[in-house]
């Protein structure tokens, strides 16, 4: 009997001990439903997926998927809002928006979403087994480019913003951050883009087409210098691009057809013209049928191809018609400029419902840029049927670089430079020559500046640069009228929710 007792006690002690010993790791449970941060970012492919998501942020509704074009077009004199325009859009057109504006908040939010994804990519590249392979270095360059792209719109439009550069892994790191002075943000952008220049390749093939290149980085860096009025640096950076174009005209340069920049396939020959040689960076949208997926517009949460943009539907006169070209632009755009009818439908235009050229019967002017209506590939009812567009949104193209180069060279007119530079006129005339227009004929800094202002307006109409240009040049009030309050509207307000959650954060003046 005694023996049995001992055995029982031993068994119990054993069981007891067994439970003690399983303590190690017993409480460490891994989520089986989703990849854990601990198991991700182990390979080059993970790194690539991560940077792809940073690109993906640009497609979202808050940015190029929808709000980006609304915000910057409505704040410029490129377009006018029509009656069905959403209420928040109306406040933009009227410059009566405040810190609660949904659109102003969305751009801010969309940019930071991209920044967070880029930060996550950059922060984790160092944890890879080999973080020096060509691909990893390229990914690093891409992430830095993207981060700069997003910060650019923040600093250029909101001024000082929180400069978040590290990965925010957990809620407790999500503490509010006050605004970082704009010059520091600019410096950070310069640093990132300088790094990216060195890390990125000249071009891509096949499946990688559309990733940021060395030239994307240089163009954005030049633009960053220009916005900071660092004209010599800007001119030097643009010059590098122009020199490359001269040496490699098939790789980089103006497209023969102006409209090839706003369609998927060329009106001229039906060739595929996205990611063309003029494009230095564009936001890629795709639909299986090149019309944009109905269910996936503006999302990056889809597993199916077909992320479309709202551009065609929102501006399309056959359906939503939220905006039209402003009367100013219609009146100012010389009829002799072929770009006018390439960008707009007007009396006498034709378009292609059902791929048969049909007379445009309206008496007003409507959007043609970035529209499938009138595109060789599109059909007349595309917009109605699919509500989305898969035409890529161009962010920087070579024509823009040429014009920015001219502006940098003509710095004196902007108040900082010294002398008239004929190279600037050459750059502008290149852009004009493409659409068979005569030279601009500028002969002094002042007339050159006027030429730049006009050329940018006509060449880059509705490409979301106008408002930034006007502000940059200090002529916004002159152009936009009294609705633009000097000292206030140069910057957008910091979103109210951000202010609410960050004690001590100061709003931009006037809001």
């Amino acid at each position, binding site marked *: *009997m005694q023996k049995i*007792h001992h055995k*029982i006690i031993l068994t*119990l002690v054993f*069981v*007891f001990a067994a*439970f*003690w010993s*399983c303590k190690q790791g*017993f*409480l460490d*449970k891994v*989520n*089986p*439903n*989703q990849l*854990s*941060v601990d198991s*991700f*970012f182990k390979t080059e492919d993970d790194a*690539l*997926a*991560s940077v*792809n*998501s*940073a*690109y993906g*942020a640009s*497609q979202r509704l808050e940015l190029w998927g929808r709000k980006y074009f609304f915000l910057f077009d409505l704040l410029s004199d490129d377009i006018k809002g029509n009656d069905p325009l959403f209420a928040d859009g109306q406040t933009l057109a009227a410059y009566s928006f405040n810190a609660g504006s949904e659109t102003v908040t969305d751009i801010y939010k969309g940019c*930071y979403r991209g920044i*967070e*994804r880029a*930060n*996550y990519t950059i922060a984790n590249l160092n944890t890879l087994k080999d973080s020096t392979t060509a691909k990893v270095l390229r990914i690093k360059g891409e992430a830095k480019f993207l981060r700069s792209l997003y910060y650019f719109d923040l600093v250029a439009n909101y001024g000082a913003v*929180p400069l*978040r550069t590290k*990965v*925010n*892994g*957990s*809620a*407790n790191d*999500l503490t509010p951050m006050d605004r970082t002075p704009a010059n520091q943000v600019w410096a950070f952008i310069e640093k990132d883009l300088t790094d990216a220049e060195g890390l990125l390749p000249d071009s891509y093939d*096949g*499946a*990688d*087409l559309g990733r940021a290149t060395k030239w994307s980085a240089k163009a954005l860096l030049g633009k960053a210098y220009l916005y900071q009025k660092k004209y010599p640096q800007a001119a030097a950076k643009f010059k590098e691009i122009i020199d490359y174009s001269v040496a490699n005209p098939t790789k980089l340069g103006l497209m023969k057809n102006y409209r090839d920049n706003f369609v*998927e396939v060329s009106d001229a020959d039906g060739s595929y013209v*996205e*990611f063309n040689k003029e494009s230095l960076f564009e936001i*890629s*949208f*795709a639909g299986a049928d090149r019309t944009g997926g109905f269910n996936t517009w503006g999302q*990056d949460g*889809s*597993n199916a191809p077909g*992320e479309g943009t709202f551009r065609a539907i929102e501006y399309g006169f056959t359906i939503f018609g939220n905006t039209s070209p402003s009367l100013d632009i219609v009146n100012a755009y010389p009829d002799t400029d072929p770009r006018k009818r390439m960008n707009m439908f007007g009396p006498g235009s034709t378009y292609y419902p059902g791929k048969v050229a049909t007379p445009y019967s309206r008496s007003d002017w409507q959007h043609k840029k970035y529209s499938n209506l009138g595109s060789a590939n599109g059909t007349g009812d595309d917009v109605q049927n699919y509500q989305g567009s898969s035409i890529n949104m161009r962010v920087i193209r070579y024509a823009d670089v040429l014009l920015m180069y001219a502006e940098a060279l003509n710095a004196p007119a902007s108040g900082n430079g010294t002398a008239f530079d004929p190279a600037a006129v050459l750059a502008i005339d290149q852009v004009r020559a493409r659409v068979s227009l005569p030279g601009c004929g500028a002969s002094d800094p002042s007339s050159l500046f006027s030429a730049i202002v006009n050329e940018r307006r006509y060449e880059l109409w509705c490409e979301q640069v106008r408002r930034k240009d006007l502000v940059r040049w200090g002529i916004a009030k002159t152009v936009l009228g009294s609705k633009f309050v000097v000292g206030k509207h140069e910057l957008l307000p910091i979103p109210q*929710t*951000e202010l*609410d959650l960050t004690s001590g954060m100061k709003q931009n003046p006037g809001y």
Partner: protein
Amino acid sequence: MKQRQYYFLLTAVIGVLSISIASVAQDVAMAHNIKFLQQENTTPSQSLKAVLKGLETEYGVFFTYKNASLDNKTVNFNLKSEGDINKLLDKRLKPQKLKYKKIDNRYVIYSEGEKIDFKLIKKISVKAEQESFTTYNNLESIPALKVERMSIIINTADITVKGKVVGESGEPMPGVNIAVKGTATGTTSDADGNYSITIPDNAILIFTFIGYASQEIAVGNRSVIDVSLVPDVKTLSEVVVVGYGTQERKDVTGSIASVDIKTIRDVPIQTADQALQGRMAGVDVQSNSGIPGGGVKINIRGVGTTNSTEPLYVIDGYYPGNINSLNPNDIASIDVLKDASASAIYGVLGANGVVIITTKRAKSGKPTVTLDSYWGQQTPRHYLNLLGNRDFATVSNNAKDNATIDDNFNNFISGKPGNINPLDGSNRVPSLKDLNNLPKYDKTTGSGDQVGKEINTDWQKEVYRTAMTRNHNLTISAGNDNSRLLVSVGYLKQDGVLKGTGFERMSLRLNGDVKFNKLTFGSNIYFAQEKRQDNSGGRSGGATTSITKASPSLAVYNSGPSYILGFNGNVRERDGQDAGNPLRDLIINDQINRNYIGLASIFAEYEIIPGLKYKLNLGGDMNIGYNRGYNPVYVSSDYDYRQLATLNEYNGRSFGLLAENTLSYEKTIGKHKFNLLAGYVARQSLFSSFSAGKNTFPVGDLIRVASAGKSATGYEGNQYNSSQLGILGRINYEYDKRFYVTANIRRDGSSRFGKDYLYGTFPSASLGWRLSQEEFVKNISFISNLFLRAGWGKIGNQDIGDYKYRAVINSYPVYTFNQNTLSTGGTLSDAANSKIRWETTTSSNIGLDISILNNKVSLTADYFDKTTSDILLTTPIPISTGYDGQPTTNVGKINNKGFELASTYQDKAGDLTWALGGNITFIKNKVVEINGDKSFIPGAIDGASGGSRPITRTEAGHPVGAFYGLVVEKVLQNNSEIYYNDAKDGNSGSTYGGSTLKPGDIKFKDLNGDGKIDAANDRTYIGSPFPNYSYGFYGRAGYKGFELQIQFQGVQGSQIFNLARYWTEGMQRNFNYDNHTLNRYISENTPGNGSVPRANSNDANNTQISNRYIESGSYLRLKNLTLGYNFNQIFLNKLHSISNLRIYATASNLLTFTKYTGYDPEVGAGYADPNNYAATSNLNRNVDNANYPIPKTLLIGIQVGF
């Protein structure tokens, strides 16, 4: 299948019953006294007994007889002259009216007509070595081994026993039943408690009295037997189950409430709420729904968090258990640990309180079999007063006309059924347009005499029914001091009062105990299968809501040639809010949810040295949930059809494991008494699920398996697992029965916590001082007990979801390169909170226990203050972090303060005994902090307009889930009232969302005085779902065999948001209305009752979330009324084997006193996940969207014990 299972179970029950009846019958027969006898001698008359003695030696036989039967009997007898003994006996005994029977060589002599158990006698005659007659006092006392060669005389002299029955404190007890065990003899005590009874020698007397423990007393040689009866449950020696042990009720220093098991033992409990609701102070119990098997929601001492407030259920030491899947018949006791000082021993599981349930176990002694069956019916308590077809048409036309006028006849509102008919210049629904030509039954929609009459469907009558319910429970218990087993088999079938709903449960329990010297083993094994049918499409917003919307001018059936399944449907376009044909949806759909539940635990306890015990407790539970929903094709009209049959199946499996080691030591040194406990606990749970759907099934709906479906509609699966480790310790110290100290500590680690907070420590302590042991109280004679308690503790709530602390990768954000090349993606999903941890509840408690007048009256009062901090809430984060989702962080704080009072009183007079009890709870619930005092949590979404206007808000300074909306000022009576003076913007006055008001519209209060009514500035808190106090009281009375139980329960001061009225009084859609709309504003001359606005199908104002829908939620409910009759022992003895027989009738929810106009003031939880009947939100408490009503129940039952 269903039928077969039922019969199988029935057969098993009958089989077990027959065996027990047979064996028990035998026992009873044995117990009958036997009467025997015998014979003579030749010469003159001799004593018959003496003659028999002589015959014994002469013939070598033995005699057995009853002593008394042969007294004074003489015979003439000459031994020598006689030959055959049989003839001899024949001749002598017959004249004496005596008979005999030979068994082997034994003659049993007995009186004519007397029944003798010859089998027993044969059994006794075994073998022995004794020659002469032996006298025994009864047959059973004969030592069997010595009997074979012995003649037996049984003494049966009747004696008279007298005595007095008194109660515990010596008071005489009249009306006590006194029965002789095993006979039909009995009496009752008189007014002074005296009794006198003539009984056979050595009988056993049984004293029984309702409310008192029955006593069996062997009479022996005594002629005077005084008896003192003891109440059945002595309050003071009651034992309560605390975590990891038991304690005497009187010594408990924490706050523990127990269900007085007497109050539920004899009441049929269909659902757990009936065992708990209104029976304990501070324990708020609500049925989730009136749907059978809907389960309960329990809040202990208020709603302490916006997350789950489910208490921990500990069932026979295993946790977490599930009270809803338990067979309520198996429950032996329910104890609720209410405050932290009591529940802290359960660490991170104890914050919402702990409900400890102990199931029945076998006792040593004679095997018992108990069968308890009841049958009954349930009916809806209350119907809404909805309109008939003519009234409906009138209001509907009025609504459309008003909308048309508002719209200036131009703009017709699209998307609203019944609104559109621009061609005839009217918005009216064509079929209702002309009151003289309302829809009539035709040959396809009506039958016989219906044809040609106006259609007037009462949908409530069509879908509600009198539902049958039945329950059978068989408990067999047997065992001795060393091993015992209890087997309980239960079967419950409940149809729902709403057609297409029902619940069925089969359960089996095996509880065993084995003692092996110092080692004790025990096991608890429970299996149950539950089957729920629920075609109602959800307990809120499903069929019960549709019924209130369905048009009375829609016929139920339609046998038209194209009408598949024969149900009629709406003739106008549906828009998703329509009711359709509610009966059809309840009948043709096939939604079944099955649960297979198993729970097994074993424990071993070893006493190492006296007082020192080691206990190992191991257990596991599983729950396999299987849902299947089949929705067939139907065509009920051109607009109301389902094209593809769909089948969806869901399979969820959860497994839990628990291992606990505890060491306890008990020691008394002089006046010091210690009880120490230490333990180590490991727990783990795993869950996985898989679901899939298909559509397009063979015509006829006969084949309803997935393989028969043509196309898959989707499939998914998930897995979750979690684990927990803990160490615990407790000290109970008692000094001189005067001072008591309890201190607990538990340290828990959980897989749900972030690395930095992997372990939490939860201490608690409580003190008690028995004032009644002190000299200054001892002298107060009427005080029997006075005990002052105080406690404090800190506990955790780990019910925060799995994996919250670890960030995961979202691989959805992809990008398209090269025109159409879809890339892979992967980035941080929403921000995770690595510092996520338990919610902490800190509570203090002060209590007083008083018993006076010899414990006749007892009273317990408690005051508590409980604060839950670190409540997990989603927190807004700066946009610049770049995350979309809001992480959950430990930020909120909620306080509950309350006062509880519970009292019982028991007494008796004559044959009447009674007990009264009651409890009342006052709780003040207040949110202290949400996200650093800045924001609020929106609660239930109105759902009615498809909009997203929350009905409730949870904000600092207010109760959790307080109602929030506009305030009605009045119904505008005429145009001049529209323009009011405080309109600062010079506009026409109050507007909402830009719509201009007309006479008959509601004017809401302009709270901020800016001249316009808007959601941003004019909404305020308009009600609280919490009562000022809730209460329950009961009475119990016994008179002879009758007993009456009555229990009331109620709440006072709560409000209900009657969301159903959004539809029934909104008058904005072509749905049915309730009869309040007959008092609507029609014109200045017919302004109605002044509170119901005009009908307007284009309304954007009157139906705003406002206090228009707020009603008082106060109610008092006769929760239970039971009348039972216990057949007394004397009667039962005539039935032989039956030892206990009771019949009863019960009514539940029989009467409800309330002003609430909805189905039931006990709203139950609003929307809940149908796969998880326990999960409900505290944020939408008392939002009633015509929730499934709680029915009224009438039952009759029988309890039979063998």
